[in-house]
């Protein structure tokens, strides 16, 4: 039953992702409390323009103290194609799952994560495996970690992954009989 309910979004997700590689996303992580309760979104109105993070080149500031830092580089955003090696490993993980070897599949995903520790797709795969093993606590933590690595904002492929991750969080919570938490997680699916 579980497999059935997860299969369709997964296929959809894989289909879209296989069409093109850019790993990315838009909206975010809205969980406020670190210990698992999802807060509703409480974003303030966007601050005015000048507050936007400056992404410009450094400029000298002679009148400030010596320790004034150089401009920090803009945050590095994962915006590259998932490497072929990672895709091959995730593929192999899928094969092993189909063959019933869930730990073998997990081992393959962990290899992928060593190559790209910020692969949201790998976190999706690992969370799915743990969910299938009814290891709900692990599944939830993995899915929530995956939410951190969705990459650039405002990208439809990222949204697909984000929705999938929140769905996994919800299912993991349902597995632990936390139905309210599951409903809260699903509110993040758009």
């Amino acid at each position, binding site marked *: 039953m579980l497999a059935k309910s997860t299969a369709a979004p997964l296929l959809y997700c894989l289909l879209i992702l296989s069409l093109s590689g850019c790993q990315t996303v838009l909206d*975010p992580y809205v969980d406020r409390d670190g*210990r*698992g309760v999802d807060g509703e979104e409480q974003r303030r109105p966007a*601050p*005015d323009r000048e507050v936007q993070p400056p992404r410009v080149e450094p400029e000298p500031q002679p009148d400030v103290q010596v320790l004034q830092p150089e401009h920090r580089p803009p945050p590095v955003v994962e915006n590259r194609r998932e490497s072929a090696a990672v895709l091959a490993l995730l593929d192999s993980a899928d094969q092993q799952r189909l063959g019933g070897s869930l730990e073998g599949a997990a081992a393959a995903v962990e290899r992928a994560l060593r190559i790209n520790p910020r692969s949201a797709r790998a976190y999706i795969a690992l969370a799915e495996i743990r969910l299938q093993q009814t290891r709900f606590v692990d599944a939830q933590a993995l899915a929530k970690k995956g939410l*951190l690595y969705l990459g650039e904002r405002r990208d439809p492929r990222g949204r697909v992954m984000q929705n999938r991750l929140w769905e996994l969080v919800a299912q993991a919570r349902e597995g632990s009989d936390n139905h309210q938490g599951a409903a809260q997680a699903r509110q993040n699916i758009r």
Partner: protein
Amino acid sequence: MSFDRIRQVLSVALKSALALSVLAIIALIYLDVQLQNKFEGKRWKIPAKVYARPLELYVGATMTQRDLLDELRRLQYRSETDAAQPGTYVVVGSRVDVHTRGFQFWDGEEHSRQISIVFQAGAIRFLSERGHSVHLVRLEPVKIGGIYSAEQEDRQLVRLASVPDELTRALLAVEDRGFYEHRGLSLRGITRAFWVNVNQGGWVQGGSTITQQLIKNLYLSNKRTLGRKGLEAVLALLLELHYSKEEILEAYLNEVYLGQQGARAIHGVGLASRYYFGRPIEELRSEQIALLVGMIKGPSLYNPIRNPHQALKRRNQVLTIMSATDILSHDELEALKERPLGLVEGVARSANLYPGFMTLVKRQLSKTYAAEDLQEEGLQIFTTLDPHAQQLAEQALQRSVKALNRKETKKSEQLQGGFIVTSPNNGEVLALVGGRDPRFDGFNRVLDARRQVGSIIKPAVFLSALEMREQYQLTTRVNDAAFSLVLPSGKSWSPKNFDRKSHGQPMMIDALVHSYNVATAQLAMDVGLDKLLDVIRRLGVDQALPQLPSISLGAVELTPFEVAQMYQTIAADGFTSPVRAIREILDGEGKPLKRYPLKVKQAFDPSAIALLQYALQEVMNRGTGVSAYGRLPRTLGLAGKTGTTNDQRDSWFAGMGGDYLAVAWLGRDDNGATHLTGSSGALKVWTRFMQDAKVKPFQWTPPPDIELAWVDRESGHLTQQNCPGSVQVAIDLRYQDLEHQSCIRKRVNRWLEKVF
């Protein structure tokens, strides 16, 4: 003597003989059962083999040609002109062709493959197998040690099928020519041995059959008494009765004693081949086979490392026998006699290269396995060690300590250290150096040196505040004015800054960046001690800490390993993963036994962690860690924290880049003063490692509510980038006071100040 008397004697004799025969038969049956049990059951104690991480090759992997060649050297691959055999490679310009050996991994077999790897700009550019591009190739892992029993017997089992035909033929030619004909004992063998010995003018052949030798090695002591010889003969006959020639030969090949390395006994041709020649048995050359076979007669006399001349003489004797028995042609014989012994370089032979890391492996294993399982069951243990990172870590610690030790310092007062490197995202230990002598198998400072941590604990204080962002942001002012507190014990506590000055009311970020003690202690008291202890616990310190306010300044003793666990949680965006050294274990038959999966547990809100990470980046940018950028480019955006304790007894640094998290500690074993701060000591070790390891940029990817903004240092209000006195700070948009300060008035003021 009367007839009756004679009959009486005869009858007694007969009865005694009968009784004796019955006893003998019972003894024989007993021996037979024992023999079979022993042979069937645990024939050998096989120590667990411990492996490093396998090297993954894929397009885009950050790796130089040199890195790959280093790994191939560790795996004892040979450079040959065509790389036609497994275990060989050839370098062609920027390309390396490798014929891999293949390996049975936890998750399946990696076959032997002929691959080409092209390097460009410090990464793998192309990867192909016989002309077709491939995604991923895994080399076999380097064996880094074993777990031995008290007797320290080590062996690597081989199947008869994988033993070169040449080797078994040479063995039988030298040790037992009638092996396939006799039934355990061979009169002809003894006579022939006698004649051969006479002809060769010395003892070249022994008279015992392979079967007898096996019995002797397996079940009997070394004493050569007549009684033992008899027992050996009986057991040899029994063994032949129950087992095929192939089974006996295979057992012999695995049992035979072939030398000693310190306390470790080398048993079997499989291990001997690895130990002396650095290659699997399938890859042995004829002259190496001859040497191995020759050594059986006197493993210590003919030990090629200690007695190379004797060994060479003996080898050539065996080559001659091989030629006489048509295993080699005469021409081959002459050429082979000229060859050197073909031993592998010394380093690769060491049994335990990484004692510090192995201690961690054994400790983590001992939670699940009994010592006997590890020493006898032939387990294969796959660890997380990265030999390349380990080498760089050892160098970084050794060289820094050497440079920092004053020449006149007495040995007992010399600087010591510990250094651990992990993978920031999953907690795998990549390198561990337990002291300035990395080969010393003793006190492990990473695991066992409990030392005061000093300021290295401060991120926990700031994190406990940042968890309450309604009240605390990085821009929040904290009080750096000296204060005194009377503790429940009656003592008073008055924290001091390193420079003994007060810095007014700095922003939180500046208090951390410059490691102000008073402001930190004040902040910790405002937030609450319980809250701080809870944060330290959630960061992964699994130890009851004293309820003292001085904890906020690091008046608590932790090991470098525990500190690594704390920073692991910060590096992994608030998700704790246990720092671990083992990935998986295969049983004696190569079947999956246990896996140590990636575990993640959310311990903190990623927004709070992102703010802390930003502050730790600023420590490097403009605070106590800035000297790292004397050697490293600022674009790396590294994050870390120094720690110095009272009287400069301990020098700490913990910090992270994109692919390495490392914790360095320097100090004296007698806890004496060192004259080092965190920056002048441990940071040097850390920086040297990060530079040598070509660390990747730390990726600060905050959740969307966290953004960078320019803040006026005096007022704390948001302002513009070019505004005088503004500083860039990460803020949480949900809680930050977004009041904006015009820059113009400030500029005018400044201008006026300048003019007048």
